[in-house]
């Protein structure tokens, strides 16, 4: 008997869940829910939302950071919900587990049905039901049903269809049913893509911190939250070499070796013992001319703990090494304890010059009478590429004010240039350190080892300072003297602080400046010069405040001179100030047995920059600046070490996923029936097509087959 077939039977599978035949109503309902598409979609939505939260709230930060950012209430709530580590939170993993169960049930439910469906031709369909299809056609053929069926069958088979013919006895004679199917890969694709999701999730869960957690819960291991040396951490914080899946960091300084990786947890660290030790021979970092990093590479030697064998290797970004199932990646780099030699340069004249030696990461106590400061060596940078062009200094011409033609021409051509000029230069090594006072307050300093020519010919030492990480460094530009040293400036600053030397400089200046014919001017000029110098040195107060620098001179003019004469007064006072400072400088040089400054462009530039620097120097928040005089760089390489046995499962899942997605989207599952009923010498054909994709392509395909299959011999 031909089975009753309806269009919906051949249409796509349902999205309802698996309905077990046994068990209580609640059990059956929950299994149905768990395996239904709507539940899976709901889970995916939750995963999406959780993922968004995970990208917006910074993950794995120390707890105080969240308090700073969100306030105590929200921070506590977020930490309770583990929003600081969303992707390893228990509820996130639970959702993933549900997704795995749901998708597995879905695959289990559909696979047998699909496999049966793939095998079946559905040739037993009742010919009346062909009328119910969306794509249907009628036609009259000259051939007998059998001949027509064989021809149609061959045509379909030639087009890649699988065909089955069936003869049926009807009251009018023998009729033939042609049943054909194509695109079975679509259903296989469904199975592949959905199994892939399960495989990927399982592999990912396996490679996640599942084992690490299991060991902290069941294996008696606990998170270590203290500091100190790795070798002193007790065994309950150490995971064994046999741990099948982990991902951690391994820091090795040049010339040393390490075999303990650090796995950071939200509340501390765990130590992972490796089956080998990594010795870092050399860390190599190369830069492009623009200062961008070009290469990070580590020359390492792997020492096998069990056999004692050694194996050299080179680890680069994008080129990891692998040993005993553990992958070693180049992750980052750090200072491995470079030794630096610093010279303290007194900034307020009172302190004395001295030298210190230390290691990056370490600190030293320095005392200056009553002040006690801690010097913390933060970082040594050997290469600094900076943009020293006009534009970057803020004095560039406005590029927008050029005519259109010129503007356009500038934009044409090769992509190796920009309209804004940049001048990138390596300006040599720099040292970063912090000075912390007794109250724990610290300023951070960033000083370049060599004087830098900023483009105007005069070389300056850049002394950077900032109060917090959030700010950029502000630089005091101290001119280099004729020996390329900072001492010339220090000498001048010392002299400026000394009232006696100032007095002497004023006298010398007045003697040179005043025409001997007019002695009445001497007293007046001496008074002005001494006032200007006193104000500039910060020794005289204006309006009860001692600001010092050019600001004090300007304040003085504003209070003492009527508005109409200010401009002229300022000009005069500045000339007097510059003149006196020149004398002061010569005096200071003389005191140290140096000849007076000769008249030259270089001297003029030195004095100009020195005036600016002296003016800003009172704002420098430390009694001394440390100048880098020598260093010996030791680098450390940060490796990521990982063992991820689930990787192959995930990759298999990925392959299945891609194949499955393409099969589902680009293979349409179609079934085609042609019922050939005898009519006279020929046949009456009814044709129907069903597809699980409602697309215009299906319409087109149906029309094509209709034209080809339902043609009469006489039309050929």
């Amino acid at each position: 008997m031909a089975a009753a077939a309806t269009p919906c039977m051949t249409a796509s599978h349902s999205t309802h869940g698996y309905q077990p035949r046994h068990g209580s109503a609640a059990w059956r309902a929950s299994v149905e829910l768990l395996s239904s598409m709507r539940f899976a979609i709901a889970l995916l939505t939750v995963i999406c939302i959780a993922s968004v939260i995970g990208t917006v709230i910074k993950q794995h930060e120390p707890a105080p950071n969240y308090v700073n950012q969100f306030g105590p209430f929200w921070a506590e709530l977020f930490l309770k919900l583990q929003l600081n580590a969303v992707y390893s939170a228990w509820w996130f993993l639970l959702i993933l587990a549900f997704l795995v169960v749901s998708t597995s049930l879905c695959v289990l439910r559909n696979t047998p049905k699909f496999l049966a469906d793939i095998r079946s031709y559905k040739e037993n369909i009742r010919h009346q039901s062909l009328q119910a299809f969306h794509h249907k056609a009628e036609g009259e053929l000259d051939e007998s049903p059998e001949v027509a069926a064989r021809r149609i069958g061959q045509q379909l088979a030639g087009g890649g269809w699988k065909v089955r013919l069936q003869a049926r006895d009807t009251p009018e004679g023998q009729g033939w049913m042609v049943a054909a199917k194509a695109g079975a890969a679509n259903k296989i694709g469904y199975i592949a893509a959905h199994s892939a999701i399960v495989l990927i999730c399982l592999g990912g869960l396996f490679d996640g911190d599942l084992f690490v957690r299991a060991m902290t819960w069941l294996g008696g291991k606990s998170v270590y939250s203290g500091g100190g040396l790795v070798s002193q951490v007790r065994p309950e914080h150490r995971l064994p070499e046999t741990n099948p899946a982990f991902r951690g960091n391994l820091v090795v300084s040049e010339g040393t070796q390490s075999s303990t990786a650090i796995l950071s947890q939200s509340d501390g660290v765990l130590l992972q013992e490796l089956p080998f030790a990594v010795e870092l021979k050399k860390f190599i970092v190369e830069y492009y001319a623009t200062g961008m990093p070009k290469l990070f590479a580590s020359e390492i030697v792997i020492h096998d703990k069990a056999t004692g064998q050694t194996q050299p290797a080179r680890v680069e970004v994008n080129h990891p090494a692998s040993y005993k199932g553990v992958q070693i990646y180049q992750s980052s780099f750090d200072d491995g304890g470079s030794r630096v030699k610093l010279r303290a340069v007194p900034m307020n004249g009172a302190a004395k010059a001295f030298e210190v030696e230390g290691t990056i990461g370490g600190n030293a106590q320095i005392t200056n009478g009553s002040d006690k400061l801690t010097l913390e060596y933060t970082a040594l940078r050997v290469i600094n590429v900076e943009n020293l062009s006009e534009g970057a200094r803020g004095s560039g011409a406005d590029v927008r004010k050029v005519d259109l033609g010129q503007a356009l021409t500038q934009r044409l051509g090769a992509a190796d240039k920009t309209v804004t000029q940049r001048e990138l230069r390596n300006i040599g090594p720099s040292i970063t350190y912090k000075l912390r006072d007794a109250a724990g307050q610290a300023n951070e300093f960033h000083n370049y080892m060599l004087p830098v020519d900023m483009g105007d010919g005069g070389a300056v030492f850049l002394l950077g300072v900032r109060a917090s990480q959030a700010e950029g460094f502000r630089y005091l530009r101290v001119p280099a003297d004729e020996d390329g040293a900072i001492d010339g400036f220090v000498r001048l600053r010392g002299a400026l602080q000394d009232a006696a030397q100032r007095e002497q400089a004023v006298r010398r200046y007045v003697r040179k400046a005043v025409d001997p014919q007019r002695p009445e001017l001497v007293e007046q000029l001496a008074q002005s010069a001494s006032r200007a110098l006193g104000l500039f040195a910060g020794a005289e107060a204006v309006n009860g405040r001692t600001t010092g620098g050019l600001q004090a001179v300007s304040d003085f003019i504003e209070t003492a001179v009527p508005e109409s004469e200010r401009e002229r007064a300022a000009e005069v006072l500045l000339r007097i100030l510059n003149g006196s400072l020149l004398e002061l400088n010569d005096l200071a040089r003389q005191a140290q047995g140096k000849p007076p400054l000769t008249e030259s462009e270089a001297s003029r530039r030195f004095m100009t920059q020195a005036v600016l620097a002296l003016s800003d120097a009172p704002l420098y928040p430390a009694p001394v600046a440390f100048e880098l005089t020598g260093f010996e760089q030791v680098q450390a390489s940060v490796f990521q070490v990982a063992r991820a046995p689930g990787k192959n499962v995930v990759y298999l899942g990925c392959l299945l996923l891609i194949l499955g997605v393409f099969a589902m989207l680009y293979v349409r599952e179609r079934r085609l029936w042609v019922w050939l009923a005898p009519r006279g010498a020929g046949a009456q054909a009814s044709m129907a097509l069903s597809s699980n994709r409602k697309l215009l392509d299906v319409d087109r395909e149906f029309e094509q087959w209709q034209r080809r299959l339902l043609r009469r011999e006489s039309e050929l």
Partner: protein
Amino acid sequence: MNTSVATANPTSVTLDGGFFARRTWGDWLFALLVLAGALFAFQRYHASMDVYEKWILAGTAPVLIGLGWFWRPLRTLMLVVAGLSLLAVLSYAGDLRRADSVFWLKYFLSSQSAILWMSMIFFMSTVFYWLGMFSRGQSEALEGIGSKLLWVAVTLALVGTLVRWYEGHQMGPDIGHIPVSNLYEVFVMFCWMTALFYLYYESQYRTRAMGAFVMLVVSAAVGFLLWYTLVREAHEIQPLIPALQSWWMKLHVPANFIGYGTFALAAMLGFAYLIKQQAEETRWYKLAPIWVFGIALCFVPIAFRQRGVGEAGGSYWLGYALVAALIVGTILLGRRRIAARLPSFEVLDDVMYKSIAVGFAFFTIATVLGALWAAEAWGGYWSWDPKETWALIVWLNYAAWLHMRLMKGLRGTVASWWALAGLAVTTFAFIGVNMFLSGLHSYGSL
């Protein structure tokens, strides 16, 4: 009743001929040229390629041949692009300064000139498509011009890209790389990819009326590209940082942009669908959501900015906003005319599905390739880096769209709105993440 069950005779009669039997002599000539080109490239540059890159080159030839055979206009495109690029390379003769003296290079073929021309022609094409939309009687001709211009723009985009590749290598042996490494380069790619997919659907469905809508998103991308070039000067070729020095980039990035391009295409068709649907609507509050959403979408690139609009070249963006509001407003005002010109709902719906399907398939590949690359560069195939996470969200979003469409037969209004919302999510994953969220993928900061 059932008397016999017989299987059909397995000897088959071919109706439309085999795949190879349908090849014309032009197809074979094209294949030969592609192979010759690939062999030439191999012979000349094999020394500077690693084994994976050699395999990628070997794989490129059949892919290009396949594409040319699949859709024949691509043959012409590829040959013209190759010819012009070779002309540029020969004119350069190894000296980038010739870009300022050789006429062809200076005004047409050097990468910056080609890309500026591309930008202008994309805008012109958009204008012609819209003129075609509103013109009475001349629609076909105007849209035809728009379509031709679009081909020219795509050609120039590809020439600009290839010449840029060459220029990079001329700047220094360690600088050159395939131009898919930063936001500037991928925006060029986004433009031609979206346009090319559109041109394919245009020819398949024999209607040019969708072009006006699709070109809006391409024009928006070009607007961003111009700002990025003129204000930020992001066009300068930069060398690759160590993390990007990998052959994976050649596969991962283009696969991703097939996804981004087609998702954008689908969203614009969704927009067209909604406009057509609202043709007879007169109540303003019913139309307002589309208008607001349209402007918001135009604004995606700066809506995500942290810094103020003024700081980022204020007048430029203000103008951009005004233009966006006007365009969306005009579209709504002319909705009846637009609705009459647009193809049927079925066609819009079909193209929307097709482009999301192809985008989803390639986005899957791109994400998997990204995971494989991450496993080699960062030490784990999945790190929940913001870009990765957002790629997953985009993927899940379109997976849900496809499920609803294929299983529940979702189409029409909801599908269109969803596709539009999908563009917002995609854009955030594409640009927003770079601006907002720091992570391993910070290659194109703004």
